[in-house]
């Protein structure tokens, strides 16, 4: 009985860190979904009140429109902030990014978060429909900067996933090089020549991957546009490049598997 209890305690201790790591972004995601529901609700209330106000122009309709627009604007900011928090958690959990890269994008997100906090404080001082329109325009004019930051962070997260795999790829390449070196004496010159050629091709795939990543980094750092649509189009191009980079690693890995088979068997 004691042994089972001890085993259970050890299992709980061992599994706790794993659960904590995945729980953070999961919790942020659940909060994001909740904030989204709240935003949709308050947006609908506001739209009903706005229609009434534009139709009847009564004082009561104006008061209701004012109350609902303030509630909607505050919730809109909360919703955006919950998304930024989700991105922060995803950056924290990403295993391929360097601490410097993480810090860079976390600072970017933090700046956007500060903008939203300050903007929310302004909303509470709104006293008329005209005020609401003016204060909302502050977010509207800033939104492209926020959107570019979001798109850049998303690309960085994808790059982090690829970089993690690339580290694994490089380690495998080094191990295969060593293996070929150890085995050199026991192979025929023809087979040795084939092994060398294949290793070169595996390395070439990694070089092509690296070039693609450099291209992505350049495009991502210069990501900007005059509209969300324009930025979305640039983002799609970056995504295509990310897929191409992944394809290079795929092809190189396939070569590695062939090389393993070549080494495994005699002529």
């Amino acid at each position, binding site marked *: 009985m004691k042994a089972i209890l001890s085993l259970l305690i050890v299992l709980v201790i061992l599994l706790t860190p794993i659960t904590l790591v995945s729980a953070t972004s999961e919790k942020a*995601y659940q909060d*994001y979904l909740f904030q*989204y529901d709240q*935003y949709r609700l308050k*947006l609908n209330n506001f739209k009903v009140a*706005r229609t009434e*106000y*534009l139709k009847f122009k009564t004082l009561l309709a104006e008061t209701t429109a004012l109350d609902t*627009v303030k509630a909607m604007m505050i919730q*809109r900011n909360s*919703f*955006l902030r919950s*998304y930024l928090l*989700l*991105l922060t958690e*995803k950056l924290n959990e990403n295993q391929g990014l360097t601490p410097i890269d993480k810090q860079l994008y976390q600072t970017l997100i933090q700046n956007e978060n500060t903008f939203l906090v300050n903007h929310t404080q302004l909303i509470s001082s709104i006293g008329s*429909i*005209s005020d*609401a*329109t003016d204060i*909302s325009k502050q977010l*509207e004019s800033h*939104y492209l900067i926020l*959107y570019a930051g*979001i*798109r850049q962070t*998303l690309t960085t*997260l*994808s790059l982090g*996933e*690829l970089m993690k*795999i690339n580290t*694994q*790829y490089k*380690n*495998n390449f080094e*191990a*295969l090089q*060593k*293996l070929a070196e*150890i*085995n050199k004496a*026991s192979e025929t010159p023809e087979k040795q020549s084939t092994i060398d050629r294949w290793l070169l091709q595996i390395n070439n795939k990694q070089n092509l991957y690296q070039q693609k990543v450099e291209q992505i980094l350049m495009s991502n750092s210069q990501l900007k546009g005059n509209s969300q649509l324009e930025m979305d189009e640039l983002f799609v191009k970056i*995504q295509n490049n*990310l*897929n191409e980079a*992944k394809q290079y*690693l*795929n092809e190189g*890995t*396939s070569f*590695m*598997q*062939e090389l*393993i*088979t070549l*080494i*495994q*068997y*005699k002529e």
Partner: protein
Amino acid sequence: MLKKILYTLLVLFLGGWVGFWVNKTVKQIKPSTPTTATPINAQPTPSNRQESAIASQSAFLSAQQSVASLAASLSTLTITDTILNPPAVELPLGFSDK
């Protein structure tokens, strides 16, 4: 009493037979599941080839396992996390006749 039992048995038998017939007909009507082609392995394992001396060494086995692990990581890698699509918000308030 015996009549009742016989009637019940007859009804059950007929019901069962009708059920069986309907089931069989439905099965026939159902479109047959398309047969999936068995993928042809691009690299068939050479069964009659002799393994080299290095194939049993720990360095080789470790490299083999590591490459398999890399291939598995790549196959499960998703570049785009769809839950992270940017939030859709409506920006202009729409009080057009301000």
